[in-house]
């Protein structure tokens, strides 16, 4: 029994080590397999160009500077759409959370509009706002609005009634109740909503660009597909993923800064070493 215990030890620490660099290891293994399969022709390098050639293409596109312009246009649309959608979403979520009467009035409306795939609204948006820049931003904004509003409303509603009672027992005015209880109390879920929101904004911006745009990563990918430069399609996807990660890291950092009391956001950030 003793010898088994001793024998177990190194294995356990090895497992722990694997666990620590697990995600990185998994990605590296998958990329390696992909590279090998594509180079030996087991999978078609036309549809699945080996990662090394995607990196080469990405490097070339970066050097030419064109992809940076597309990425810049996309990021600008995402951020504008996010601001235009999540801002009103936050306000509506707060008021709906705080006022049962307003909630009863508006909840059916939100529930009916939320499940509509926002991309299906694009034709309507194009008709109303034209095919210019604004329609892509509006699409992202419409998508960003709902998760923000719904999460924030849930955030206000999960505040313990005792906190309202404490505030009222000390004679809090409506304004102070809002700034000292409703706002900070709903912040954890509101920021979760912001995260969902910014991701939806990114998805819808790309989707809108696929359909109707002169520039942007979505348009770049679509054009690469039409001219059958598959490696460029992948390169575009890599850039989109990097943008997505960057936006999430920024929001995570912001959460840690804005909620020093919230250990959850701290430990999440620490776990991924942001």
């Amino acid at each position, binding site marked *: 029994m003793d010898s088994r215990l001793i024998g177990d030890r190194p294995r356990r620490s090895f497992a722990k080590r694997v666990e620590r660099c697990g995600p990185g290891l998994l990605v590296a293994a998958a990329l390696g397999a992909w590279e090998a399969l594509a180079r030996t022709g087991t999978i078609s390098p036309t549809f699945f160009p080996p990662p090394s050639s995607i990196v080469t293409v990405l490097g070339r596109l970066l050097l030419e500077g064109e992809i940076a312009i597309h990425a810049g246009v996309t990021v600008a649309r995402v951020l504008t759409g996010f601001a235009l959608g999540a801002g009103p979403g936050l306000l509506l979520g707060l008021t709906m959370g705080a006022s049962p009467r307003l909630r009863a009035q508006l909840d059916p409306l939100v529930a009916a509009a939320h499940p509509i795939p926002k991309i299906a609204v694009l034709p309507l948006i194009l008709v109303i706002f034209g095919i210019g820049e604004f329609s892509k931003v509006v699409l992202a904004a419409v998508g960003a609005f709902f998760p923000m509003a719904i999460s924030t409303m849930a955030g206000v509603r999960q505040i*313990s009634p*005792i*906190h309202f*009672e*404490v*505030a*009222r*027992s*000390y*004679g*809090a*005015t409506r304004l*102070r109740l809002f700034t*000292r*209880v409703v706002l*900070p*109390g709903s*912040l954890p879920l509101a920021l979760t909503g912001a995260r969902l929101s910014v991701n939806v904004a990114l998805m819808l911006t790309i989707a809108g660009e696929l359909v109707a745009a002169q520039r942007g990563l979505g348009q770049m990918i679509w054009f690469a597909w039409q001219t059958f430069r598959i490696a460029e399609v992948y390169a575009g996807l890599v850039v989109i993923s990097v943008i997505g990660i960057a936006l999430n890291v920024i929001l995570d950092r912001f959460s840690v800064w804005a*909620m*020093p*009391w*919230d*250990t959850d956001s701290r430990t999440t950030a620490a776990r991924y070493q942001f």
Partner: protein
Amino acid sequence: MRLECQRVSKTYEGPDGPLSVLEDVTFGIEDHEFVSIVGPSGCGKTTLLKLIARLIDPTTGRIAITGLDADGRPQSALVFQDHGLFPWMTVLDNVAFGLEMHGVSRPDRLDRASAFVERVGLAQFANSYPHQLSVGMQQRVGIVRAFVTDPPMLLMDEPFGALDSQIRIVLQEELLRIWRDQRQIVLFVTHDLDEAVRLSDRILVMTGRPGRICEEIPVPIARPRQLSRREPSEIAEIKWHVWELLQDEVRKSLWIPD
């Protein structure tokens, strides 16, 4: 000053018709008095405190505070059973909350709050958040949050109910120590007979729902009382008397035949 409750009743509109929680509750509390309320659970003790705190209105009856100099202080402050601290504020901001609501300037209120935080030995935790403290510390913060506003009347709703018995004794002593300096009216709801007898000048015993006051029992034991010493026989006697009054009510509230 004096707190006066005259024939106070409270009825809630429940799903199965009206639910009478308090019925015809009448009592008075003089200045500097420490009064406990005991009664079976669900007898409306918390409702009574909320009525006095003016968080809710009585259905009938009158609650009056007389002889209060109107110098802008809050009339009363509530201490809640599970402390009710704001998790998003530091200990210091939590303690200063009552002052903030009354428009005391930030440097001023933080000064006063930190003096109280120091007094209960939590100076090094002033900038911590509630979740970083033990339950005992949290409840101390909850208590000084009420004391710092210097209200003429403190309403405490089973403030030590969730604590283990050792921490409870220490905090009871701490409460008496602060009260000795401040000398507010304290109205203290508890389910712990020991606690009621040890702390108060007078005990109001309530019946089960609808809650009424069935007896007022004075506790004529000299202060300062030493809580940790072996209890004198008069304490045991008072406790026995309260229990005799209560046991039927408690059984009734649990549907146990005697």
